[in-house]
Protein backbone atom coordinates (compact mmCIF):
# COMPACT_ATOMS: atom_id res chain seq x y z
CA UNK A 1 0.00 0.00 0.00
CA UNK A 2 1.43 3.39 -1.01
CA UNK A 3 2.04 6.15 1.50
CA UNK A 4 -0.59 8.62 0.22
CA UNK A 5 -3.19 5.86 0.09
CA UNK A 6 -2.42 4.81 3.68
CA UNK A 7 -2.69 8.42 4.84
CA UNK A 8 -6.03 8.78 3.06
CA UNK A 9 -7.40 5.71 4.80
CA UNK A 10 -6.33 7.05 8.18
CA UNK A 11 -8.12 10.31 7.45
CA UNK A 12 -11.26 8.42 6.49
CA UNK A 13 -11.06 6.25 9.62
CA UNK A 14 -10.67 9.27 11.87
CA UNK A 15 -13.59 10.98 10.17
CA UNK A 16 -15.75 7.89 10.67
CA UNK A 17 -14.75 7.70 14.33
CA UNK A 18 -15.72 11.33 14.74
CA UNK A 19 -19.11 10.65 13.20
CA UNK A 20 -19.71 7.73 15.61
CA UNK A 21 -19.09 9.88 18.66
CA UNK A 22 -21.96 10.84 20.97
CA UNK A 23 -24.13 13.33 19.15
CA UNK A 24 -25.63 16.19 21.07
CA UNK A 25 -29.04 15.26 22.51
CA UNK A 26 -31.82 16.20 20.12
CA UNK A 27 -34.10 18.93 21.27
CA UNK A 28 -37.38 17.39 22.53
CA UNK A 29 -40.45 18.83 21.00
CA UNK A 30 -42.59 20.05 23.89
CA UNK A 31 -45.63 18.67 22.09
CA UNK A 32 -44.11 15.24 21.35
CA UNK A 33 -46.74 12.67 22.26
CA UNK A 34 -46.45 10.28 25.19
CA UNK A 35 -47.08 6.55 24.87
CA UNK A 36 -48.50 4.53 27.72
CA UNK A 37 -49.39 0.88 28.05
CA UNK A 38 -50.63 -1.22 30.94
CA UNK A 39 -49.31 -4.67 31.84
CA UNK A 40 -51.35 -6.81 34.22
CA UNK A 41 -49.67 -9.38 36.45
CA UNK A 42 -52.85 -10.92 37.70
CA UNK A 43 -54.21 -13.85 39.62
CA UNK A 44 -57.53 -15.58 39.86
CA UNK A 45 -60.67 -13.50 39.86
CA UNK A 46 -62.11 -12.52 43.22
CA UNK A 47 -64.85 -15.12 43.00
CA UNK A 48 -63.74 -18.57 41.95
CA UNK A 49 -66.64 -20.55 40.59
CA UNK A 50 -66.87 -23.84 42.48
CA UNK A 51 -65.88 -26.80 40.37
CA UNK A 52 -68.59 -29.41 39.91
CA UNK A 53 -67.69 -32.74 41.49
CA UNK A 54 -65.69 -34.88 39.12
CA UNK A 55 -67.18 -37.99 37.58
CA UNK A 56 -66.20 -41.26 39.26
CA UNK A 57 -66.06 -44.75 37.75
CA UNK A 58 -66.27 -47.76 40.04
CA UNK A 59 -64.87 -50.82 38.30
CA UNK A 60 -65.44 -54.13 40.04
CA UNK A 61 -63.60 -57.22 38.90
CA UNK A 62 -65.84 -60.28 38.88
CA UNK A 63 -63.70 -62.59 36.83
CA UNK A 64 -63.40 -66.23 37.80
CA UNK A 65 -60.33 -65.63 39.97
CA UNK A 66 -62.46 -63.56 42.32
CA UNK A 67 -64.21 -66.72 43.48
CA UNK A 68 -61.15 -67.79 45.45
CA UNK A 69 -61.14 -67.45 49.20
CA UNK A 70 -59.04 -64.84 50.95
CA UNK A 71 -56.78 -65.66 53.87
CA UNK A 72 -59.37 -64.04 56.12
CA UNK A 73 -61.98 -66.52 54.98
CA UNK A 74 -64.53 -64.74 52.78
CA UNK A 75 -64.22 -65.04 49.03
CA UNK A 76 -62.66 -62.22 47.12
CA UNK A 77 -65.90 -61.38 45.37
CA UNK A 78 -67.65 -61.00 48.72
CA UNK A 79 -64.91 -58.65 49.82
CA UNK A 80 -65.10 -56.73 46.56
CA UNK A 81 -68.85 -56.37 46.83
CA UNK A 82 -68.63 -55.20 50.43
CA UNK A 83 -65.88 -52.70 49.69
CA UNK A 84 -67.75 -51.36 46.67
CA UNK A 85 -71.00 -51.15 48.60
CA UNK A 86 -69.43 -49.15 51.40
CA UNK A 87 -67.72 -46.85 48.93
CA UNK A 88 -70.99 -46.14 47.15
CA UNK A 89 -72.82 -45.53 50.41
CA UNK A 90 -70.29 -42.94 51.57
CA UNK A 91 -69.74 -41.09 48.29
CA UNK A 92 -71.60 -37.75 48.28
CA UNK A 93 -74.85 -37.99 46.37
CA UNK A 94 -73.86 -35.09 44.13
CA UNK A 95 -70.87 -36.98 42.76
CA UNK A 96 -71.70 -38.58 39.43
CA UNK A 97 -70.88 -42.27 39.61
CA UNK A 98 -70.88 -45.07 37.06
CA UNK A 99 -70.53 -48.74 37.88
CA UNK A 100 -68.62 -51.08 35.58
CA UNK A 101 -68.21 -54.81 36.08
CA UNK A 102 -65.61 -56.89 34.29
CA UNK A 103 -66.16 -60.57 33.71
CA UNK A 104 -69.72 -60.67 34.91
CA UNK A 105 -70.89 -62.49 31.80
CA UNK A 106 -70.27 -66.18 31.74
CA UNK A 107 -67.93 -67.19 28.98
CA UNK A 108 -67.00 -63.66 27.95
CA UNK A 109 -63.55 -63.19 26.45
CA UNK A 110 -60.63 -61.29 27.93
CA UNK A 111 -61.16 -58.35 25.63
CA UNK A 112 -64.87 -58.17 26.29
CA UNK A 113 -65.72 -54.47 26.44
CA UNK A 114 -67.39 -53.10 29.50
CA UNK A 115 -70.20 -50.59 29.60
CA UNK A 116 -71.59 -48.75 32.56
CA UNK A 117 -74.50 -50.38 34.26
CA UNK A 118 -77.82 -48.62 33.93
CA UNK A 119 -79.55 -47.25 36.92
CA UNK A 120 -79.15 -44.52 39.45
CA UNK A 121 -77.35 -44.57 42.75
CA UNK A 122 -80.24 -46.35 44.49
CA UNK A 123 -79.88 -49.25 42.11
CA UNK A 124 -76.22 -49.70 42.84
CA UNK A 125 -76.81 -51.86 45.86
CA UNK A 126 -78.94 -54.23 43.84
CA UNK A 127 -76.46 -54.12 40.99
CA UNK A 128 -73.60 -54.95 43.31
CA UNK A 129 -75.55 -57.75 44.95
CA UNK A 130 -76.06 -59.38 41.56
CA UNK A 131 -72.36 -59.51 40.76
CA UNK A 132 -71.12 -63.06 40.53
CA UNK A 133 -67.62 -64.29 39.88
CA UNK A 134 -67.88 -66.38 36.76
CA UNK A 135 -66.64 -64.85 33.50
CA UNK A 136 -63.50 -63.51 31.96
CA UNK A 137 -62.42 -59.98 31.27
CA UNK A 138 -59.36 -57.81 31.39
CA UNK A 139 -59.22 -55.10 33.99
CA UNK A 140 -56.44 -53.38 32.05
CA UNK A 141 -58.46 -53.35 28.86
CA UNK A 142 -61.48 -52.09 30.73
CA UNK A 143 -59.56 -49.26 32.38
CA UNK A 144 -57.81 -48.27 29.17
CA UNK A 145 -61.18 -47.72 27.54
CA UNK A 146 -62.44 -45.27 30.14
CA UNK A 147 -62.59 -41.65 28.96
CA UNK A 148 -60.26 -39.26 30.76
CA UNK A 149 -61.05 -36.07 32.60
CA UNK A 150 -60.39 -33.87 29.58
CA UNK A 151 -62.97 -35.70 27.50
CA UNK A 152 -66.68 -35.02 27.47
CA UNK A 153 -68.29 -37.09 30.21
CA UNK A 154 -64.88 -38.41 31.20
CA UNK A 155 -63.77 -39.50 34.65
CA UNK A 156 -61.61 -37.66 37.13
CA UNK A 157 -61.34 -40.63 39.40
CA UNK A 158 -61.51 -44.38 38.97
CA UNK A 159 -61.84 -46.87 41.81
CA UNK A 160 -60.77 -50.33 40.69
CA UNK A 161 -61.69 -53.19 43.02
CA UNK A 162 -59.90 -56.42 42.19
CA UNK A 163 -57.60 -59.17 43.37
CA UNK A 164 -55.27 -58.19 40.51
CA UNK A 165 -54.36 -61.69 39.44
CA UNK A 166 -56.72 -62.48 36.61
CA UNK A 167 -53.82 -62.90 34.18
CA UNK A 168 -56.06 -61.76 31.41
CA UNK A 169 -55.29 -58.91 29.07
CA UNK A 170 -52.77 -56.11 29.08
CA UNK A 171 -50.19 -54.95 31.57
CA UNK A 172 -51.72 -52.60 34.13
CA UNK A 173 -48.63 -50.36 34.41
CA UNK A 174 -48.90 -48.50 31.09
CA UNK A 175 -52.65 -48.34 31.54
CA UNK A 176 -52.16 -46.64 34.91
CA UNK A 177 -49.77 -44.11 33.43
CA UNK A 178 -52.12 -43.55 30.51
CA UNK A 179 -54.98 -42.80 32.88
CA UNK A 180 -52.85 -40.33 34.83
CA UNK A 181 -51.82 -38.64 31.60
CA UNK A 182 -55.49 -38.26 30.74
CA UNK A 183 -56.24 -36.62 34.06
CA UNK A 184 -57.64 -39.64 35.91
CA UNK A 185 -56.62 -40.47 39.43
CA UNK A 186 -56.92 -44.20 40.17
CA UNK A 187 -57.56 -45.79 43.54
CA UNK A 188 -56.58 -49.45 43.40
CA UNK A 189 -58.52 -51.42 46.02
CA UNK A 190 -56.81 -54.75 46.51
CA UNK A 191 -58.92 -57.63 47.74
CA UNK A 192 -56.80 -60.56 48.79
CA UNK A 193 -53.11 -61.00 49.18
CA UNK A 194 -51.63 -60.74 45.68
CA UNK A 195 -48.98 -58.00 45.71
CA UNK A 196 -49.49 -55.15 43.29
CA UNK A 197 -46.71 -53.94 41.01
CA UNK A 198 -45.02 -50.83 42.35
CA UNK A 199 -45.45 -49.12 39.00
CA UNK A 200 -49.09 -48.50 39.86
CA UNK A 201 -48.13 -45.84 42.36
CA UNK A 202 -44.82 -44.70 40.91
CA UNK A 203 -46.36 -42.60 38.21
CA UNK A 204 -44.38 -39.60 37.09
CA UNK A 205 -46.69 -37.51 34.99
CA UNK A 206 -50.37 -36.71 35.11
CA UNK A 207 -52.43 -34.24 33.15
CA UNK A 208 -51.11 -32.42 30.11
CA UNK A 209 -49.37 -29.08 30.67
CA UNK A 210 -52.50 -26.97 30.58
CA UNK A 211 -54.25 -25.15 33.38
CA UNK A 212 -56.23 -27.79 35.26
CA UNK A 213 -58.81 -25.30 36.47
CA UNK A 214 -61.09 -23.03 34.47
CA UNK A 215 -60.45 -19.98 36.66
CA UNK A 216 -57.18 -19.02 35.08
CA UNK A 217 -57.90 -16.87 32.10
CA UNK A 218 -55.84 -14.17 30.50
CA UNK A 219 -58.38 -11.47 31.02
CA UNK A 220 -57.51 -8.10 29.48
CA UNK A 221 -58.45 -5.21 31.71
CA UNK A 222 -59.69 -1.97 30.13
CA UNK A 223 -58.08 1.30 31.15
CA UNK A 224 -58.34 4.93 30.16
CA UNK A 225 -56.30 8.06 30.61
CA UNK A 226 -58.11 11.14 31.78
CA UNK A 227 -57.14 14.71 32.35
CA UNK A 228 -56.10 15.65 35.84
CA UNK A 229 -58.21 18.05 37.82
CA UNK A 230 -61.61 18.40 39.36
CA UNK A 231 -63.52 17.80 36.13
CA UNK A 232 -61.61 15.01 34.35
CA UNK A 233 -62.25 14.18 30.73
CA UNK A 234 -61.30 10.86 29.17
CA UNK A 235 -58.47 11.33 26.70
CA UNK A 236 -57.88 7.85 25.39
CA UNK A 237 -58.86 4.24 26.15
CA UNK A 238 -56.91 1.03 25.93
CA UNK A 239 -56.64 -2.52 27.21
CA UNK A 240 -53.97 -4.16 29.30
CA UNK A 241 -51.59 -6.28 27.30
CA UNK A 242 -52.51 -4.39 24.14
CA UNK A 243 -50.82 -1.70 22.12
CA UNK A 244 -49.76 1.53 23.82
CA UNK A 245 -52.08 4.51 23.79
CA UNK A 246 -50.84 7.92 22.77
CA UNK A 247 -51.58 11.15 24.57
CA UNK A 248 -50.35 14.69 24.90
CA UNK A 249 -47.69 15.41 27.51
CA UNK A 250 -48.66 16.89 30.84
CA UNK A 251 -50.49 15.82 33.96
CA UNK A 252 -52.97 13.02 33.54
CA UNK A 253 -54.43 10.10 35.44
CA UNK A 254 -54.44 6.48 34.30
CA UNK A 255 -57.52 4.62 35.49
CA UNK A 256 -57.34 0.83 35.31
CA UNK A 257 -60.81 -0.68 35.57
CA UNK A 258 -60.20 -3.15 38.32
CA UNK A 259 -62.47 -3.62 41.29
CA UNK A 260 -62.01 -1.14 42.88
CA UNK A 261 -60.47 0.93 40.05
CA UNK A 262 -56.77 1.73 40.22
CA UNK A 263 -56.06 5.45 39.71
CA UNK A 264 -52.47 6.47 39.04
CA UNK A 265 -51.74 10.17 38.34
CA UNK A 266 -48.54 11.19 36.58
CA UNK A 267 -46.90 14.13 34.94
CA UNK A 268 -45.87 12.80 31.53
CA UNK A 269 -42.87 14.50 29.98
CA UNK A 270 -42.92 15.01 26.20
CA UNK A 271 -41.80 12.13 24.03
CA UNK A 272 -41.60 9.57 26.83
CA UNK A 273 -42.91 5.98 26.82
CA UNK A 274 -44.21 4.30 29.92
CA UNK A 275 -45.48 0.95 31.09
CA UNK A 276 -47.74 0.74 34.12
CA UNK A 277 -47.23 -2.71 35.63
CA UNK A 278 -50.00 -3.82 37.96
CA UNK A 279 -50.09 -6.82 40.28
CA UNK A 280 -53.65 -7.62 41.28
CA UNK A 281 -54.72 -10.61 43.35
CA UNK A 282 -58.33 -9.94 44.35
CA UNK A 283 -58.90 -13.59 45.26
CA UNK A 284 -56.30 -13.67 48.02
CA UNK A 285 -57.28 -13.20 51.61
CA UNK A 286 -56.50 -10.37 52.09
CA UNK A 287 -56.47 -9.19 48.48
CA UNK A 288 -53.28 -7.57 47.28
CA UNK A 289 -52.44 -4.99 44.65
CA UNK A 290 -49.21 -3.25 43.67
CA UNK A 291 -48.15 -1.12 40.75
CA UNK A 292 -45.12 0.58 39.33
CA UNK A 293 -44.08 2.63 36.34
CA UNK A 294 -41.15 1.79 34.20
CA UNK A 295 -39.81 3.34 31.06
CA UNK A 296 -40.94 1.34 28.04
CA UNK A 297 -37.58 1.71 26.30
CA UNK A 298 -35.79 -0.04 29.13
CA UNK A 299 -35.64 -3.81 29.13
CA UNK A 300 -38.38 -5.31 31.22
CA UNK A 301 -37.49 -5.91 34.79
CA UNK A 302 -34.87 -3.21 35.26
CA UNK A 303 -36.94 -1.11 37.62
CA UNK A 304 -36.72 -1.64 41.32
CA UNK A 305 -39.72 -1.74 43.62
CA UNK A 306 -38.75 0.07 46.74
CA UNK A 307 -39.61 -1.43 50.08
CA UNK A 308 -42.96 -0.28 51.28
CA UNK A 309 -44.02 0.73 47.81
CA UNK A 310 -42.39 4.16 47.79
CA UNK A 311 -41.21 5.57 44.52
CA UNK A 312 -37.70 4.53 43.60
CA UNK A 313 -35.43 6.87 41.68
Amino acid at each position, binding site marked *: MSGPLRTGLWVLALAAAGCAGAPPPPAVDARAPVRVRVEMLGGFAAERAPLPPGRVALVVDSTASMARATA*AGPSRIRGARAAARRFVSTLPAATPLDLYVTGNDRGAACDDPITPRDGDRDDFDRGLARIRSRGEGSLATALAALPGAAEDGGYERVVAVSAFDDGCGDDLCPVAQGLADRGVRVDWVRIGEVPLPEC*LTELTRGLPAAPPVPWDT*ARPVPFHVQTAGADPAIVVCGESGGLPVQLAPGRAEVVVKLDPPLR*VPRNFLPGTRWVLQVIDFPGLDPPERQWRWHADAAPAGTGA*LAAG*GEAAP
Partner: protein
Amino acid sequence: MAEGQADRRGKGGSVRRGRATALGTLALCLTAAAPAGAADPCAPWPGEPDPLPRVDADDEMLARWAELRARELSDAARDLEPVAPLRANHLWRRVLCLDPGSDAAVAGLARTPLAAVHQPALVTRAADATDADVWAALDLPVRVRLPQPEPTPAATPQPAAPTPSAFDSGVAELEAQVRSARFEEALAGADAVAASAENGEQAARAQVLAATAALALGREADADAHFRRALSADPGLTLDPMTTSPKVRRAFDRVREARP
Protein backbone atom coordinates in the same frame (compact mmCIF):
# COMPACT_ATOMS: atom_id res chain seq x y z
CA MET B 1 -36.17 4.04 35.92
CA ALA B 2 -39.11 2.76 37.83
CA GLU B 3 -41.41 3.85 40.51
CA GLY B 4 -44.24 2.10 42.19
CA GLN B 5 -46.60 1.73 45.02
CA ALA B 6 -47.94 -1.13 47.01
CA ASP B 7 -51.59 -1.20 47.88
CA ARG B 8 -51.73 -4.05 50.28
CA ARG B 9 -55.22 -4.27 51.55
CA GLY B 10 -54.08 -6.25 54.50
CA LYS B 11 -50.87 -7.82 55.44
CA GLY B 12 -48.58 -8.83 52.62
CA GLY B 13 -45.66 -11.18 52.78
CA SER B 14 -42.13 -10.19 52.07
CA VAL B 15 -40.29 -11.39 49.02
CA ARG B 16 -38.19 -14.40 49.78
CA ARG B 17 -34.98 -14.25 47.88
CA GLY B 18 -32.42 -16.82 47.11
CA ARG B 19 -34.15 -19.49 49.12
CA ALA B 20 -32.59 -22.80 48.37
CA THR B 21 -33.45 -25.99 50.15
CA ALA B 22 -32.94 -29.60 49.35
CA LEU B 23 -36.64 -29.82 48.62
CA GLY B 24 -36.09 -27.44 45.74
CA THR B 25 -34.53 -30.23 43.81
CA LEU B 26 -37.95 -31.85 43.61
CA ALA B 27 -38.97 -29.27 41.04
CA LEU B 28 -35.98 -30.24 38.96
CA CYS B 29 -36.88 -33.88 39.38
CA LEU B 30 -40.39 -33.17 38.20
CA THR B 31 -38.98 -31.47 35.14
CA ALA B 32 -36.60 -34.32 34.56
CA ALA B 33 -39.41 -36.82 34.88
CA ALA B 34 -41.25 -35.31 31.95
CA PRO B 35 -41.04 -37.51 28.89
CA ALA B 36 -38.73 -36.51 26.08
CA GLY B 37 -40.42 -34.06 23.78
CA ALA B 38 -43.09 -33.17 26.33
CA ALA B 39 -44.01 -29.54 26.87
CA ASP B 40 -42.09 -27.62 29.52
CA PRO B 41 -44.06 -28.22 32.73
CA CYS B 42 -43.15 -24.72 33.89
CA ALA B 43 -44.18 -22.95 30.70
CA PRO B 44 -46.45 -19.99 31.46
CA TRP B 45 -50.18 -20.47 31.38
CA PRO B 46 -52.36 -17.91 29.60
CA GLY B 47 -52.08 -14.58 31.34
CA GLU B 48 -48.84 -15.38 33.15
CA PRO B 49 -45.55 -13.59 32.49
CA ASP B 50 -43.24 -15.27 30.02
CA PRO B 51 -40.87 -16.74 31.12
CA LEU B 52 -42.58 -17.81 34.31
CA PRO B 53 -40.89 -15.91 37.15
CA ARG B 54 -39.82 -17.52 40.40
CA VAL B 55 -39.90 -16.14 43.89
CA ASP B 56 -36.15 -15.53 43.70
CA ALA B 57 -36.34 -13.51 40.46
CA ASP B 58 -34.03 -10.50 40.27
CA ASP B 59 -36.94 -8.26 39.44
CA GLU B 60 -38.74 -7.64 42.71
CA MET B 61 -42.07 -7.00 41.02
CA LEU B 62 -41.93 -10.34 39.24
CA ALA B 63 -40.64 -12.05 42.37
CA ARG B 64 -43.56 -10.60 44.32
CA TRP B 65 -46.00 -11.77 41.65
CA ALA B 66 -44.51 -15.28 41.82
CA GLU B 67 -44.89 -15.30 45.59
CA LEU B 68 -48.52 -14.18 45.46
CA ARG B 69 -49.30 -16.55 42.64
CA ALA B 70 -47.78 -19.45 44.55
CA ARG B 71 -49.89 -18.52 47.58
CA GLU B 72 -53.03 -18.34 45.48
CA LEU B 73 -52.38 -21.66 43.78
CA SER B 74 -51.63 -23.28 47.13
CA ASP B 75 -55.00 -22.11 48.46
CA ALA B 76 -56.76 -23.48 45.40
CA ALA B 77 -54.87 -26.77 45.61
CA ARG B 78 -55.91 -27.25 49.23
CA ASP B 79 -59.54 -26.65 48.26
CA LEU B 80 -59.31 -29.13 45.41
CA GLU B 81 -57.54 -31.94 47.26
CA PRO B 82 -60.67 -33.68 48.58
CA VAL B 83 -62.67 -33.43 45.37
CA ALA B 84 -60.13 -33.43 42.56
CA PRO B 85 -56.77 -34.72 43.82
CA LEU B 86 -55.16 -34.90 40.41
CA ARG B 87 -56.00 -31.28 39.69
CA ALA B 88 -54.66 -30.39 43.11
CA ASN B 89 -51.50 -32.35 42.32
CA HIS B 90 -51.16 -30.33 39.12
CA LEU B 91 -51.48 -27.06 41.03
CA TRP B 92 -48.96 -28.17 43.66
CA ARG B 93 -46.48 -28.92 40.88
CA ARG B 94 -47.14 -25.46 39.54
CA VAL B 95 -46.35 -23.98 42.94
CA LEU B 96 -42.99 -25.74 42.78
CA CYS B 97 -42.29 -24.07 39.44
CA LEU B 98 -42.81 -20.70 41.12
CA ASP B 99 -41.27 -21.55 44.46
CA PRO B 100 -38.96 -24.58 44.24
CA GLY B 101 -38.41 -24.50 48.01
CA SER B 102 -42.06 -24.70 48.97
CA ASP B 103 -42.48 -27.25 51.76
CA ALA B 104 -46.25 -26.92 51.44
CA ALA B 105 -46.10 -27.96 47.80
CA VAL B 106 -43.94 -30.97 48.58
CA ALA B 107 -46.36 -32.01 51.31
CA GLY B 108 -49.30 -31.36 48.99
CA LEU B 109 -47.79 -33.59 46.32
CA ALA B 110 -47.33 -36.32 48.89
CA ARG B 111 -51.01 -36.00 49.81
CA THR B 112 -52.20 -36.14 46.20
CA PRO B 113 -50.42 -38.99 44.44
CA LEU B 114 -51.51 -39.78 40.92
CA ALA B 115 -52.66 -43.16 42.17
CA ALA B 116 -53.08 -44.91 45.50
CA VAL B 117 -53.26 -48.52 46.55
CA HIS B 118 -55.75 -49.47 49.25
CA GLN B 119 -55.63 -52.81 50.99
CA PRO B 120 -58.64 -53.07 53.25
CA ALA B 121 -58.72 -55.99 55.63
CA LEU B 122 -61.77 -58.21 55.35
CA VAL B 123 -63.35 -58.78 58.73
CA THR B 124 -66.45 -60.60 59.75
CA ARG B 125 -67.17 -59.21 63.18
CA ALA B 126 -66.80 -55.50 63.67
CA ALA B 127 -68.98 -52.94 62.00
CA ASP B 128 -67.62 -50.97 59.09
CA ALA B 129 -65.46 -48.12 60.28
CA THR B 130 -66.60 -44.86 58.73
CA ASP B 131 -64.72 -42.23 60.67
CA ALA B 132 -62.69 -41.12 57.67
CA ASP B 133 -63.60 -39.41 54.43
CA VAL B 134 -64.81 -41.53 51.56
CA TRP B 135 -61.36 -41.87 50.01
CA ALA B 136 -59.47 -42.55 53.22
CA ALA B 137 -62.16 -45.09 54.09
CA LEU B 138 -60.99 -47.23 51.18
CA ASP B 139 -58.16 -48.32 53.49
CA LEU B 140 -60.36 -49.25 56.43
CA PRO B 141 -61.42 -52.82 57.20
CA VAL B 142 -64.47 -54.01 55.31
CA ARG B 143 -67.05 -56.08 57.04
CA VAL B 144 -68.08 -59.10 55.02
CA ARG B 145 -71.20 -61.02 55.93
CA LEU B 146 -70.58 -64.71 55.70
CA PRO B 147 -73.29 -67.07 54.53
CA GLN B 148 -75.10 -68.73 57.39
CA PRO B 149 -73.68 -72.20 58.04
CA GLU B 150 -75.90 -75.19 57.58
CA PRO B 151 -77.38 -76.31 60.90
CA THR B 152 -75.55 -79.35 62.20
CA PRO B 153 -76.91 -82.05 64.48
CA ALA B 154 -76.48 -81.19 68.10
CA ALA B 155 -73.40 -82.78 69.58
CA THR B 156 -72.49 -83.41 73.13
CA PRO B 157 -71.04 -80.20 74.41
CA GLN B 158 -67.37 -80.47 75.23
CA PRO B 159 -65.61 -78.11 77.59
CA ALA B 160 -63.85 -75.60 75.39
CA ALA B 161 -60.11 -75.23 75.82
CA PRO B 162 -59.12 -71.65 76.49
CA THR B 163 -57.80 -70.20 73.21
CA PRO B 164 -56.45 -66.75 72.61
CA SER B 165 -58.96 -64.44 70.96
CA ALA B 166 -58.38 -63.06 67.48
CA PHE B 167 -57.56 -59.73 69.07
CA ASP B 168 -55.04 -61.18 71.50
CA SER B 169 -53.11 -62.98 68.81
CA GLY B 170 -53.42 -60.03 66.45
CA VAL B 171 -52.18 -57.47 68.91
CA ALA B 172 -49.31 -59.72 69.97
CA GLU B 173 -48.24 -59.92 66.34
CA LEU B 174 -48.63 -56.17 66.01
CA GLU B 175 -46.43 -55.52 69.03
CA ALA B 176 -43.82 -57.91 67.68
CA GLN B 177 -43.84 -56.10 64.35
CA VAL B 178 -43.36 -52.70 66.00
CA ARG B 179 -40.61 -54.05 68.26
CA SER B 180 -38.77 -55.52 65.30
CA ALA B 181 -39.20 -52.33 63.23
CA ARG B 182 -41.49 -53.99 60.70
CA PHE B 183 -43.56 -50.83 60.64
CA GLU B 184 -45.11 -51.23 57.18
CA GLU B 185 -46.43 -54.65 58.13
CA ALA B 186 -47.73 -53.29 61.40
CA LEU B 187 -49.58 -50.50 59.64
CA ALA B 188 -51.06 -52.86 57.07
CA GLY B 189 -52.54 -55.11 59.74
CA ALA B 190 -53.39 -52.66 62.49
CA ASP B 191 -56.88 -51.76 61.36
CA ALA B 192 -57.84 -55.41 61.09
CA VAL B 193 -56.60 -56.01 64.62
CA ALA B 194 -58.50 -52.96 65.85
CA ALA B 195 -61.61 -54.22 64.10
CA SER B 196 -61.35 -57.51 65.96
CA ALA B 197 -61.29 -55.76 69.33
CA GLU B 198 -64.05 -56.56 71.74
CA ASN B 199 -64.03 -53.25 73.53
CA GLY B 200 -62.82 -49.71 73.11
CA GLU B 201 -59.75 -50.22 75.22
CA GLN B 202 -58.54 -53.00 72.96
CA ALA B 203 -59.28 -51.02 69.81
CA ALA B 204 -57.36 -48.04 71.22
CA ARG B 205 -54.39 -50.27 72.01
CA ALA B 206 -54.18 -51.44 68.40
CA GLN B 207 -54.53 -47.90 67.09
CA VAL B 208 -51.75 -46.61 69.35
CA LEU B 209 -49.48 -49.35 68.00
CA ALA B 210 -50.41 -48.29 64.48
CA ALA B 211 -49.70 -44.65 65.33
CA THR B 212 -46.32 -45.63 66.72
CA ALA B 213 -45.49 -47.43 63.47
CA ALA B 214 -46.68 -44.46 61.41
CA LEU B 215 -44.54 -42.06 63.45
CA ALA B 216 -41.54 -44.31 62.96
CA LEU B 217 -42.10 -44.06 59.22
CA GLY B 218 -42.43 -40.28 59.42
CA ARG B 219 -46.13 -40.37 58.47
CA GLU B 220 -47.35 -37.88 60.99
CA ALA B 221 -50.75 -37.39 59.41
CA ASP B 222 -51.38 -41.13 59.51
CA ALA B 223 -50.23 -41.24 63.11
CA ASP B 224 -52.63 -38.44 64.00
CA ALA B 225 -55.48 -40.33 62.34
CA HIS B 226 -54.69 -43.47 64.34
CA PHE B 227 -54.50 -41.46 67.56
CA ARG B 228 -57.86 -39.90 66.78
CA ARG B 229 -59.36 -43.35 66.24
CA ALA B 230 -57.78 -44.51 69.48
CA LEU B 231 -59.35 -41.60 71.34
CA SER B 232 -62.68 -42.23 69.66
CA ALA B 233 -62.56 -45.81 70.87
CA ASP B 234 -61.34 -44.92 74.34
CA PRO B 235 -61.82 -41.22 75.19
CA GLY B 236 -60.06 -41.63 78.53
CA LEU B 237 -56.95 -43.10 76.94
CA THR B 238 -53.58 -42.13 78.42
CA LEU B 239 -50.14 -43.38 77.51
CA ASP B 240 -47.79 -44.82 80.08
CA PRO B 241 -44.81 -42.44 80.26
CA MET B 242 -42.58 -45.28 81.46
CA THR B 243 -43.12 -47.40 78.40
CA THR B 244 -43.94 -44.84 75.70
CA SER B 245 -41.34 -42.81 73.88
CA PRO B 246 -41.50 -39.01 74.29
CA LYS B 247 -42.01 -38.60 70.55
CA VAL B 248 -45.10 -40.78 70.61
CA ARG B 249 -46.42 -39.06 73.75
CA ARG B 250 -45.92 -35.61 72.25
CA ALA B 251 -47.82 -36.56 69.10
CA PHE B 252 -50.56 -38.18 71.15
CA ASP B 253 -50.88 -35.17 73.46
CA ARG B 254 -51.10 -32.85 70.48
CA VAL B 255 -53.96 -34.86 68.97
CA ARG B 256 -55.74 -35.13 72.30
CA GLU B 257 -55.53 -31.40 72.89
CA ALA B 258 -56.80 -30.68 69.41
CA ARG B 259 -59.94 -32.70 70.02
CA PRO B 260 -63.08 -30.63 70.63
